[in-house]
Protein backbone atom coordinates (compact mmCIF):
# COMPACT_ATOMS: atom_id res chain seq x y z
CA UNK A 1 0.00 0.00 0.00
CA UNK A 2 1.27 3.43 -0.88
CA UNK A 3 0.15 5.27 2.26
CA UNK A 4 0.61 4.57 5.95
CA UNK A 5 -2.95 5.85 6.40
CA UNK A 6 -4.20 2.87 4.38
CA UNK A 7 -2.35 0.41 6.62
CA UNK A 8 -3.92 2.15 9.63
CA UNK A 9 -7.36 1.87 8.05
CA UNK A 10 -6.78 -1.84 7.46
CA UNK A 11 -5.83 -2.46 11.10
CA UNK A 12 -8.80 -0.48 12.40
CA UNK A 13 -10.98 -2.71 10.23
CA UNK A 14 -9.49 -5.68 12.15
CA UNK A 15 -10.48 -4.03 15.44
CA UNK A 16 -14.01 -3.37 14.21
CA UNK A 17 -14.33 -6.99 13.15
CA UNK A 18 -13.19 -8.00 16.64
CA UNK A 19 -16.29 -6.16 17.94
CA UNK A 20 -14.29 -3.46 19.68
CA UNK A 21 -16.33 -0.70 21.29
CA UNK A 22 -13.27 1.45 21.99
CA UNK A 23 -10.52 1.96 19.42
CA UNK A 24 -7.52 4.19 20.03
CA UNK A 25 -5.10 5.36 17.37
CA UNK A 26 -1.97 7.30 18.32
CA UNK A 27 0.49 8.66 15.78
CA UNK A 28 3.61 10.26 17.10
CA UNK A 29 6.60 11.73 15.29
CA UNK A 30 9.81 11.86 17.32
CA UNK A 31 12.30 13.81 15.14
CA UNK A 32 15.10 13.64 17.75
CA UNK A 33 14.95 9.82 17.55
CA UNK A 34 14.14 9.82 13.83
CA UNK A 35 11.09 7.75 14.67
CA UNK A 36 7.48 7.58 13.61
CA UNK A 37 5.42 5.52 16.06
CA UNK A 38 1.90 4.34 15.37
CA UNK A 39 -0.17 2.58 18.03
CA UNK A 40 -3.56 1.03 17.36
CA UNK A 41 -5.35 -0.62 20.26
CA UNK A 42 -8.82 -1.86 21.06
CA UNK A 43 -10.99 -3.66 23.60
CA UNK A 44 -12.19 -6.26 21.13
CA UNK A 45 -12.34 -10.01 21.39
CA UNK A 46 -8.59 -10.42 20.96
CA UNK A 47 -6.48 -12.52 18.64
CA UNK A 48 -7.10 -16.23 18.43
CA UNK A 49 -3.47 -17.12 17.81
CA UNK A 50 -0.07 -15.97 19.08
CA UNK A 51 1.56 -12.90 17.43
CA UNK A 52 4.04 -14.87 15.33
CA UNK A 53 1.12 -16.78 13.81
CA UNK A 54 -1.11 -13.81 13.00
CA UNK A 55 1.84 -12.12 11.28
CA UNK A 56 2.04 -15.03 8.85
CA UNK A 57 0.50 -13.83 5.55
CA UNK A 58 -1.03 -17.28 5.07
CA UNK A 59 -2.89 -17.21 8.39
CA UNK A 60 -6.44 -15.89 8.59
CA UNK A 61 -9.52 -16.48 10.73
CA UNK A 62 -11.89 -15.59 7.89
CA UNK A 63 -13.79 -18.50 6.44
CA UNK A 64 -13.22 -19.11 2.75
CA UNK A 65 -9.94 -17.17 2.68
CA UNK A 66 -6.38 -18.43 2.66
CA UNK A 67 -4.45 -15.24 3.28
CA UNK A 68 -4.40 -12.50 5.91
CA UNK A 69 -2.19 -9.78 4.54
CA UNK A 70 -2.97 -6.68 6.59
CA UNK A 71 -0.55 -7.13 9.49
CA UNK A 72 2.20 -8.72 7.42
CA UNK A 73 2.11 -5.91 4.85
CA UNK A 74 2.35 -3.29 7.59
CA UNK A 75 5.23 -5.16 9.19
CA UNK A 76 7.04 -5.33 5.84
CA UNK A 77 6.55 -1.58 5.37
CA UNK A 78 7.97 -0.93 8.85
CA UNK A 79 10.94 -3.25 8.43
CA UNK A 80 11.80 -1.63 5.10
CA UNK A 81 12.56 1.53 7.09
CA UNK A 82 14.57 -0.23 9.80
CA UNK A 83 11.55 -0.36 12.07
CA UNK A 84 9.31 -3.10 13.43
CA UNK A 85 5.76 -4.13 14.24
CA UNK A 86 4.94 -5.63 17.62
CA UNK A 87 1.72 -7.03 19.02
CA UNK A 88 0.84 -6.89 22.69
CA UNK A 89 -2.03 -6.59 25.12
CA UNK A 90 -4.12 -3.46 25.51
CA UNK A 91 -5.41 -2.22 28.82
CA UNK A 92 -8.62 -1.10 27.12
CA UNK A 93 -10.16 -4.53 27.64
CA UNK A 94 -9.51 -7.93 29.17
CA UNK A 95 -8.28 -9.39 25.87
CA UNK A 96 -7.69 -6.16 23.98
CA UNK A 97 -4.92 -5.95 21.41
CA UNK A 98 -2.26 -3.29 20.95
CA UNK A 99 -0.32 -3.09 17.70
CA UNK A 100 2.74 -0.85 17.76
CA UNK A 101 4.54 0.09 14.56
CA UNK A 102 7.82 1.96 14.54
CA UNK A 103 9.28 3.37 11.35
CA UNK A 104 12.28 5.45 10.42
CA UNK A 105 10.84 8.97 10.23
CA UNK A 106 13.18 10.24 7.52
CA UNK A 107 14.05 6.88 5.96
CA UNK A 108 13.97 7.06 2.17
CA UNK A 109 11.77 3.93 1.97
CA UNK A 110 9.12 5.19 4.39
CA UNK A 111 5.79 5.68 2.67
CA UNK A 112 4.06 9.01 3.23
CA UNK A 113 1.45 9.19 5.96
CA UNK A 114 -1.06 9.95 3.21
CA UNK A 115 -4.65 11.03 3.63
CA UNK A 116 -5.06 10.22 7.31
CA UNK A 117 -8.15 12.43 7.62
CA UNK A 118 -10.04 10.39 5.01
CA UNK A 119 -8.97 7.07 6.55
CA UNK A 120 -10.15 8.02 10.04
CA UNK A 121 -13.30 9.69 8.71
CA UNK A 122 -14.13 6.50 6.79
CA UNK A 123 -14.07 4.30 9.89
CA UNK A 124 -15.93 6.83 12.04
CA UNK A 125 -18.58 7.35 9.38
CA UNK A 126 -19.30 3.63 9.08
CA UNK A 127 -18.98 2.82 12.79
CA UNK A 128 -20.61 5.64 14.76
CA UNK A 129 -21.27 3.18 17.60
CA UNK A 130 -17.55 2.86 18.34
CA UNK A 131 -15.82 5.17 20.80
CA UNK A 132 -12.89 6.38 18.69
CA UNK A 133 -10.01 8.19 20.36
CA UNK A 134 -7.20 9.68 18.31
CA UNK A 135 -3.90 11.20 19.36
CA UNK A 136 -1.61 13.05 17.00
CA UNK A 137 1.69 14.47 18.11
CA UNK A 138 4.69 15.82 16.34
CA UNK A 139 7.32 18.36 17.30
CA UNK A 140 5.86 20.66 19.92
CA UNK A 141 2.25 19.93 18.98
CA UNK A 142 -0.01 17.27 20.44
CA UNK A 143 -3.72 16.77 20.09
CA UNK A 144 -6.17 14.35 21.67
CA UNK A 145 -9.45 13.90 19.90
CA UNK A 146 -12.33 11.78 21.15
CA UNK A 147 -14.99 11.64 18.47
CA UNK A 148 -17.98 11.49 20.83
CA UNK A 149 -16.69 14.55 22.74
CA UNK A 150 -16.12 16.42 19.51
CA UNK A 151 -19.65 15.56 18.38
CA UNK A 152 -21.07 16.79 21.69
CA UNK A 153 -19.17 20.10 21.38
CA UNK A 154 -20.46 20.61 17.85
CA UNK A 155 -23.99 19.44 18.61
CA UNK A 156 -23.72 16.60 16.10
CA UNK A 157 -26.14 13.69 16.35
CA UNK A 158 -24.21 10.52 17.25
CA UNK A 159 -26.55 8.51 15.02
CA UNK A 160 -25.45 10.52 12.00
CA UNK A 161 -22.38 8.67 10.73
CA UNK A 162 -22.04 10.94 7.71
CA UNK A 163 -21.93 14.08 9.86
CA UNK A 164 -19.46 12.46 12.26
CA UNK A 165 -17.23 11.48 9.35
CA UNK A 166 -17.18 15.02 7.98
CA UNK A 167 -16.45 16.38 11.46
CA UNK A 168 -13.48 14.04 11.90
CA UNK A 169 -12.13 14.77 8.41
CA UNK A 170 -12.03 18.48 9.17
CA UNK A 171 -10.62 18.08 12.69
CA UNK A 172 -7.85 15.67 11.68
CA UNK A 173 -6.78 17.78 8.71
CA UNK A 174 -6.63 20.87 10.93
CA UNK A 175 -4.47 19.05 13.48
CA UNK A 176 -2.19 17.62 10.81
CA UNK A 177 -1.46 21.15 9.62
CA UNK A 178 -0.40 22.03 13.16
CA UNK A 179 1.80 18.91 13.51
CA UNK A 180 3.99 19.67 10.52
CA UNK A 181 6.38 16.78 11.07
CA UNK A 182 3.51 14.31 10.56
CA UNK A 183 3.70 13.80 6.81
Amino acid at each position, binding site marked *: *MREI*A*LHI*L*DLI*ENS*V*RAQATIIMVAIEALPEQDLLRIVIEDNGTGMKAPPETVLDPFYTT*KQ*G*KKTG*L*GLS*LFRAAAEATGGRLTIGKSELGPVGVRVTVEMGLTHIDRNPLG*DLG*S*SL*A*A*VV*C*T*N*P*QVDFRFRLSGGQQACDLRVWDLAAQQGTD*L*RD*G*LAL*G*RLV*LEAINTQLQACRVLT
Partner: protein
Amino acid sequence: MTQRITNPRDLKALQEKVKSEIDLRSGPKDLRITVHMGTCGIAAGARDILTALMHELGAAKVENVSLQQTGCAGLCDQEPMLTLTDKAGGSFRYGRLDKNKVGEIVRDHVLRGQPVLEYLIKA
Protein backbone atom coordinates in the same frame (compact mmCIF):
# COMPACT_ATOMS: atom_id res chain seq x y z
CA MET B 1 -17.44 7.05 40.31
CA THR B 2 -17.73 3.88 38.24
CA GLN B 3 -20.58 1.61 39.32
CA ARG B 4 -19.44 -1.83 40.40
CA ILE B 5 -21.19 -4.88 38.99
CA THR B 6 -21.82 -7.29 41.85
CA ASN B 7 -24.39 -9.70 40.43
CA PRO B 8 -25.74 -11.05 37.09
CA ARG B 9 -28.78 -8.77 37.26
CA ASP B 10 -26.57 -5.67 37.27
CA LEU B 11 -24.63 -7.06 34.32
CA LYS B 12 -27.84 -7.71 32.39
CA ALA B 13 -29.10 -4.20 33.12
CA LEU B 14 -25.82 -2.72 31.88
CA GLN B 15 -26.02 -4.86 28.73
CA GLU B 16 -29.55 -3.60 27.99
CA LYS B 17 -28.51 0.01 28.58
CA VAL B 18 -25.53 -0.21 26.24
CA LYS B 19 -27.58 -2.03 23.58
CA SER B 20 -30.27 0.66 23.65
CA GLU B 21 -27.58 3.35 23.29
CA ILE B 22 -26.08 1.54 20.31
CA ASP B 23 -29.53 1.10 18.71
CA LEU B 24 -30.13 4.80 19.20
CA ARG B 25 -26.96 5.65 17.33
CA SER B 26 -27.51 3.25 14.44
CA GLY B 27 -31.21 3.51 13.78
CA PRO B 28 -32.91 2.09 10.67
CA LYS B 29 -32.55 3.81 7.29
CA ASP B 30 -34.21 3.23 3.89
CA LEU B 31 -30.98 2.38 2.06
CA ARG B 32 -27.80 0.75 3.25
CA ILE B 33 -24.56 1.16 1.35
CA THR B 34 -21.80 -1.21 2.37
CA VAL B 35 -18.28 -0.54 1.18
CA HIS B 36 -16.01 -3.59 1.12
CA MET B 37 -12.90 -2.66 3.04
CA GLY B 38 -10.80 -5.76 3.33
CA THR B 39 -7.10 -5.40 2.61
CA CYS B 40 -7.78 -5.98 -1.10
CA GLY B 41 -10.50 -3.33 -1.18
CA ILE B 42 -8.40 -0.78 0.68
CA ALA B 43 -5.43 -1.38 -1.62
CA ALA B 44 -7.71 -0.95 -4.65
CA GLY B 45 -9.16 2.38 -3.45
CA ALA B 46 -12.13 1.62 -1.18
CA ARG B 47 -11.31 4.55 1.09
CA ASP B 48 -11.63 7.00 -1.79
CA ILE B 49 -14.97 5.40 -2.72
CA LEU B 50 -16.22 5.90 0.84
CA THR B 51 -14.95 9.49 0.90
CA ALA B 52 -16.68 10.16 -2.43
CA LEU B 53 -19.90 8.69 -1.03
CA MET B 54 -19.67 10.96 2.02
CA HIS B 55 -19.28 14.02 -0.20
CA GLU B 56 -21.96 13.02 -2.74
CA LEU B 57 -24.55 12.08 -0.10
CA GLY B 58 -23.75 15.23 1.86
CA ALA B 59 -24.02 17.45 -1.21
CA ALA B 60 -27.38 15.86 -2.11
CA LYS B 61 -28.53 16.23 1.52
CA VAL B 62 -29.54 12.57 1.60
CA GLU B 63 -30.59 11.44 5.06
CA ASN B 64 -32.18 8.04 4.49
CA VAL B 65 -28.92 6.21 3.78
CA SER B 66 -26.64 4.48 6.24
CA LEU B 67 -23.03 3.85 5.30
CA GLN B 68 -21.39 0.69 6.52
CA GLN B 69 -18.16 -1.17 5.95
CA THR B 70 -17.39 -4.83 5.70
CA GLY B 71 -14.45 -7.03 4.80
CA CYS B 72 -13.46 -8.89 1.67
CA ALA B 73 -16.38 -10.44 -0.22
CA GLY B 74 -14.17 -12.87 -2.11
CA LEU B 75 -14.30 -10.91 -5.37
CA CYS B 76 -10.94 -9.19 -5.04
CA ASP B 77 -10.59 -8.55 -8.77
CA GLN B 78 -13.80 -6.47 -8.66
CA GLU B 79 -12.53 -4.12 -5.95
CA PRO B 80 -13.23 -1.41 -5.04
CA MET B 81 -16.85 -2.37 -4.72
CA LEU B 82 -19.98 -1.55 -2.76
CA THR B 83 -23.28 -3.24 -2.06
CA LEU B 84 -26.46 -1.19 -1.99
CA THR B 85 -29.38 -2.73 -0.13
CA ASP B 86 -32.79 -1.15 -0.47
CA LYS B 87 -35.79 -1.09 1.83
CA ALA B 88 -37.35 -4.11 0.10
CA GLY B 89 -34.20 -6.14 0.74
CA GLY B 90 -32.96 -5.94 -2.86
CA SER B 91 -29.19 -6.15 -3.05
CA PHE B 92 -27.12 -4.50 -5.79
CA ARG B 93 -23.38 -5.07 -5.95
CA TYR B 94 -21.29 -2.56 -7.89
CA GLY B 95 -17.65 -3.24 -8.79
CA ARG B 96 -14.49 -1.66 -10.18
CA LEU B 97 -15.63 1.72 -8.98
CA ASP B 98 -14.10 5.17 -9.10
CA LYS B 99 -15.27 8.58 -7.86
CA ASN B 100 -17.18 9.37 -11.05
CA LYS B 101 -19.06 6.06 -10.96
CA VAL B 102 -19.97 6.69 -7.32
CA GLY B 103 -21.44 10.06 -8.33
CA GLU B 104 -23.59 8.33 -10.96
CA ILE B 105 -24.75 5.65 -8.52
CA VAL B 106 -25.80 8.29 -5.98
CA ARG B 107 -27.61 10.38 -8.60
CA ASP B 108 -29.36 7.51 -10.38
CA HIS B 109 -29.83 4.73 -7.84
CA VAL B 110 -29.95 6.51 -4.48
CA LEU B 111 -31.88 9.59 -5.57
CA ARG B 112 -33.97 8.21 -8.48
CA GLY B 113 -34.20 4.54 -7.61
CA GLN B 114 -32.71 3.46 -10.96
CA PRO B 115 -29.82 0.97 -10.64
CA VAL B 116 -26.82 1.74 -12.84
CA LEU B 117 -26.77 -1.55 -14.75
CA GLU B 118 -23.47 -0.79 -16.43
CA TYR B 119 -21.53 -0.97 -13.16
CA LEU B 120 -23.32 -3.92 -11.56
CA ILE B 121 -21.23 -7.04 -11.08
CA LYS B 122 -22.63 -9.72 -13.34
CA ALA B 123 -23.36 -13.04 -11.65
